[in-house]
């Protein structure tokens, strides 16, 4: 059952000054839109360690205003010129084992850099996949696919609303992009004309100003790749990308005192033998976030192994359990010395 609701809203000034009603109007992609072929000045990229999004596949693009460049900050993040856009499209192959037979594009999220801030805009694709429309209040829609084990998966996919975008992106009340950082981009990407390191390529394309930092570039661990590091490092990389956007000082979950960024050294802040603060029934009747050697008594495992909105972590944007991430965290805790 679908019907149409139309409302007219009178605006003086608003984030929507930067919005267009449909994705096609931005001109980021050639027609047909669903092939996601970028137009001139729009460049694809990828990040090393990815936030779990219900097994959705993602395509990322960046557009920097003509003649402008990103500059690098000391912490490896970038400063963006006004008018920069980060574009991320979420889609599911109909069959994960045969991606070429078809796909369903669900949403495209835009982050647009304004004079003082970032604006997050969610666009939801139509059924015929010809275009996507702005849904500032987000959306929920049924989505299904055949996963890599040939199982049919059906979920009620949630497109975040503009506020929920901020739920992850806000740090000390300032909106920040999350993925594009030196360490996350420092690997080889398959461009149309051959593969190249993304940082080098961005400099070559004139998107990014060269920086002495580039001589000794750090590299994120890809938690999905068992060869990229020991369990401890991969588990910490998983926590960093899936949890630490909120769970760090200045983040939305700072009230918990649980800080999960990769650089965190304090065992209590990481949750080891730390009683919860406001977990409610999220404790699962366990006393500590992490009990070394005992994943099944650890609140962390209980919460990432749930899909109940009152229990699960992350608390937004998840309908499925990330089995591979869960297994990694279990192994990490199991191997911890009590």
């Amino acid at each position, binding site marked *: 059952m679908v019907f149409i*609701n139309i409302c007219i809203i009178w605006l003086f000034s608003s984030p929507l000054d930067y*919005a267009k009603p449909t994705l096609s109007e931005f001109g980021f992609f050639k027609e047909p839109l669903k092939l996601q072929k970028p137009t001139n000045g729009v460049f694809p990229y990828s990040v090393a360690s990815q936030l779990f999004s219900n097994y959705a596949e993602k395509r990322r693009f960046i557009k920097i205003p003509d003649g402008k460049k990103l500059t690098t900050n000391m912490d490896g993040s970038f400063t963006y010129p006004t008018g920069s856009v980060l574009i991320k499209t979420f889609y599911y192959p109909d069959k994960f084992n045969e991606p070429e037979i078809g796909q369903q594009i669900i949403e495209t999220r835009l982050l647009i850099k304004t004079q003082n801030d970032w604006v997050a805009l969610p666009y939801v694709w139509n059924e015929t996949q010809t275009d996507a429309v702005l849904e500032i209040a987000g959306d929920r829609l049924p989505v299904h696919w055949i996963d890599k084990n040939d199982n049919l998966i059906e979920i009620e996919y949630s497109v975040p609303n*503009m506020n929920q975008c*901020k739920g992850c992106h806000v740090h000390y009340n300032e909106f920040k992009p999350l993925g594009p950082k030196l360490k996350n981009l420092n690997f080889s990407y398959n461009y149309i004309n051959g593969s190249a390191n993304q940082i080098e390529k961005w400099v070559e394309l004139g998107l990014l100003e060269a920086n002495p930092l580039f001589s000794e570039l750090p590299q994120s661990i890809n938690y999905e790749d068992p060869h990229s590091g020991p369990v401890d490092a991969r588990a910490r990389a998983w926590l960093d990308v899936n949890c630490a956007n909120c769970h760090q000082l200045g983040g939305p979950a700072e*009230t918990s005192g649980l800080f999960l960024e990769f650089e965190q050294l304090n065992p*209590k*802040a990481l949750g080891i033998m730390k009683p919860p603060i406001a977990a409610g029934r999220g404790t699962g009747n366990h006393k500590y976030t992490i009990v070394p050697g005992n994943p099944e008594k650890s609140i962390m495992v209980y919460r990432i192994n749930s899909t109940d909105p009152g229990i699960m972590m992350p608390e*937004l944007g998840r309908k499925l359990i990330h089995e591979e991430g869960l297994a990694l965290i279990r192994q990490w805790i199991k191997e911890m010395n009590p």
Partner: protein
Amino acid sequence: MRYILIVTFVSILFSSYEKEIQTLLILAEAGDTIHLGEGNFSIKGSLSMEGKENIVISGNGMNKSILSFKGQIEGAEGLLISNSKNITLVDFTIQDTKGDAIKTKDVKGITFRRVKAEWTDGPNPENGAYGLYPVLCENVLIEYSIAIGASDAGIYVGQSKNIIVRNSEAFHNVAGIEIENSINVDVYDNYAHHNTGGILIFDLPDLVQKEGEFIRVYNNRSEFNNLDNFAPEGNIVGNVPAGTGIMILAAKNVEIFENQIIENKTVGTAIVSYFITEEPVTDSLYNPYTSSISIHDNVYKRSKQFPDLGHKIGQLLFAKFWRDVPEIVFDGMPDPQFIDDKGNILDGYNLCIQNNVGAEFVNLEIDKHFEHWYSPFITKFSQDISPFNCQLPPISTNILTAQ
């Protein structure tokens, strides 16, 4: 100034009401009032507002504008407000959320007036944790509001500054009203009843805002708080015995006066250190002791009855006093930094107990007799109140919000 045409496709997963309210919350401009309308509205996901100033969210009355989250499929709370200034919530009810009912984080100036948070199936560990939940906020006013059925605290103010909680009611929660790691707090004219614990003043370690102090609790009724503790294990309030009127845990500069503390079966007023939790303290910036606590001019009443025998405090008290347990219980763990060479507590840092009606006193003297908080099981307590017969200067909470 311009118009924007918004066309939204609405499905059964996302009601037009929910989408409309969420859209208004996103587009609100300073000075706006968002009207929730009259009715019982089913909401499936969290509503949220972020980065706004001077907004009123208004219903037509607690019993007329009801947002029901029964069957909620996403979001950890009913209504979330963050990073905002001067927000007023008035005249509505949030029901049956999967997590917290209303959470406000990083809001400077937040008023809850005639707002109800409730879980309609009665006390249940499956209920959400907090009803009205401002955290890391400044200038908080909660008045004429009601919280029912929270599996942690009905009204919970955490890590905040300048707070008034008044004329409100909390029942069937684990904790009726809980003030945690907060500074400059007035809790008065409230009615906390039939919870596990009526009013809790807690200071916990490992948090962003470290210390709570300058807290007054006065002219409240804390009655019949004998509900079995139904908090999921692991939560700090799980340590509260059923039958607690008022509990002060590790807080400083607290004045409890002119309250009616009636028929709470285990302890009318408890003054305890963090060690009651039997957890080690690893936060070097955290002080686990109570100090400068004044309990005066309260009225206590308690019929002979069993204390909570499922809790170690209840067991300890029962072993010594049977069904006639004292109303005021101090764990006897003063802050060592305020004790002089002779073992006396320095002036101004003491626990002072004066002019209470119907209040027997016991000092558990945990520091003298027990290695740890509860062991060994020896009931050698002191009922000598004379060291605590003193007065502290009245606390001036210096709250700027008084509205």
